[in-house]
């Protein structure tokens, strides 16, 4: 099935609205993520050199770029796993760079992160992996937690795998469980680091459909780092192409395809 990015996604207002009390992470009309002049270096190597980006609530932004251009670093900066050298990161109107650890952890509860290799806790079962954030941050009873875990697993099509260990799962299944875990606390901002990397085209397509489905269900801002142009085209409202530490171009997939810039057209032609 061929998806065409913006056409397949109904406008944010048209998507299934979820009551605000059920979605603690979703804010008003304010942008979900605002990056200003973001810089990050590792030793003498400058990875990000003054990034400016805005992601609105309910919008999905795909970050494209060559390997080593700092796309994953950008996600880690947003969730506070790394500190920027300078610049501002504003998530749901809170400045991340100045937050104390406790406040940062509060903010992290409103953010979901799918790691490149899923990063499931390998000593816990699938059920325990998904229950981990619920157990830590909610006052749910065991029964409520169990229901929520089953609901999340059903939403990623893995309702029968509760008791499996991560080592018993394929790469695609691990990504699904990672996505379910990232969604456990109903985040307002979802960060996805290469959700289709290392997967076959069919599984990649399934993961893309799944991401579209959860976006429709949860109506959150998403930033997707990917090398997969098809995936970007399928799931993103807008695309930003990183090059030499900065955003070279920002726009819809179609706008990027029509760009006159030599690097952009080269990049877009490689995989399409």
């Amino acid at each position, binding site marked *: 099935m061929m998806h065409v990015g913006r056409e397949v996604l109904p406008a944010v207002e048209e998507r299934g609205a979820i009551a605000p009390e059920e979605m603690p992470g979703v804010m008003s009309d304010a942008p979900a993520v605002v990056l200003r002049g973001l810089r990050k270096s590792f030793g003498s190597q400058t990875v990000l050199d003054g990034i400016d980006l805005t992601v609105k609530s309910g919008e999905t932004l795909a970050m494209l770029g060559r390997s080593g251009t700092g796309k994953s670093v950008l996600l880690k900066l947003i969730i506070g796993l790394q500190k920027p050298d300078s610049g501002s990161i504003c998530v749901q109107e809170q400045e991340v760079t100045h937050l104390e650890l406790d406040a940062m952890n509060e903010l992290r509860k409103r953010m979901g992160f799918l790691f490149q290799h899923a*990063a499931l*806790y390998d000593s816990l079962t699938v059920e325990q992996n998904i229950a981990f954030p619920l157990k830590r*941050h909610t006052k749910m009873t065991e029964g409520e937690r169990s229901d929520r875990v089953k609901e999340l697993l059903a939403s990623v099509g893995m309702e029968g795998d509760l008791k499996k260990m991560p080592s018993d799962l394929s790469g695609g299944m691990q990504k699904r469980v990672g996505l379910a875990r990232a969604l456990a606390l109903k985040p307002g901002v979802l960060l996805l680091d290469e959700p289709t990397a290392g997967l076959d085209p069919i599984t990649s397509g399934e993961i893309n459909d799944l991401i579209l489905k959860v976006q429709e269900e949860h109506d959150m801002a998403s930033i997707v780092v990917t090398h997969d142009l098809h995936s970007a085209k399928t799931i993103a409202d807008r695309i930003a192409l990183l090059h030499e530490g900065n955003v070279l171009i920002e726009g819809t997939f179609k706008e990027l395809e029509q760009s006159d810039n030599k690097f952009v057209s080269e990049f877009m032609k490689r995989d399409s």
Partner: protein
Amino acid sequence: MSHNPSIPHRLISQDSPEAPSLVQAILASVWSPVNGFLEWFGELGLFAWQVLRAAIRRPFEGRELIRQFDEIGSKSLPLVALAGAAIGFVLALESRSSLVRFGAQSMLPAALVYSIIHETGPIVTGLVVSGRVGAGIGAELGSMKVTEQIDAIEASGVNPYKFLAFTRIMACALVLPLLTLAADFCGVLFGWIAEILAEPISFHRFINQGFVGASFSDFLAPTFRTVVFGLIIGMIGCFQGMRTKGGTAGVGLSATSSVVLSSLFVILADVILVKIILVFFS
């Protein structure tokens, strides 16, 4: 400086002021490991500070702490007991031959109990646990680090310094004295077994003779110095694990360095603490 074309470039560069002298080269080779050691110590200090800061904040991770008691305590018990038993048995056999030579074989129970409780029990427990638990913690946390599981814990709003490090360090510190008691008991028991092979003596009499002149402080200070051993083992294991870099090779390196460094620091701490105990509890 103009370059005389008749002189080869290689010779000019050898004589130039930029070339390091032999003294500079020696100093650099000495300074490099010293610098590395100081850097490691500084990072360990920062790590300890972060664990301490995390430890005094809620939640206190009681459930994970209990799980770690089981992992570190219960599962180390058989090995520690076996090591204590072997040491007690061998110590009794070796001591007997020496004491018989001086006609002082009646001193054997006292010598054995004193030796086990004061030094052998605590240090053997410290070294056995640093081998088993130090390697385990280093490898487990190292593996979690390289597979981004520690980042995932942090990203879900949980402090890994508390959830992973504090619970393990605390469990090590609290479990070590208990394991030492077990090693002491097994050491004395198997010392008695070794003794009855040579000369029948009841366990009651053996114990009575063994604890003649021993006070509570003889028992307390050496046993509780293992709390420090536990802190060292837990701290170094967690620190080495959580700073792992690279893939599986990095995990292996973390496990090895955890064992080597924690054993080394347990021995150093033992030397210092024995001196302190002799000063304050003599």
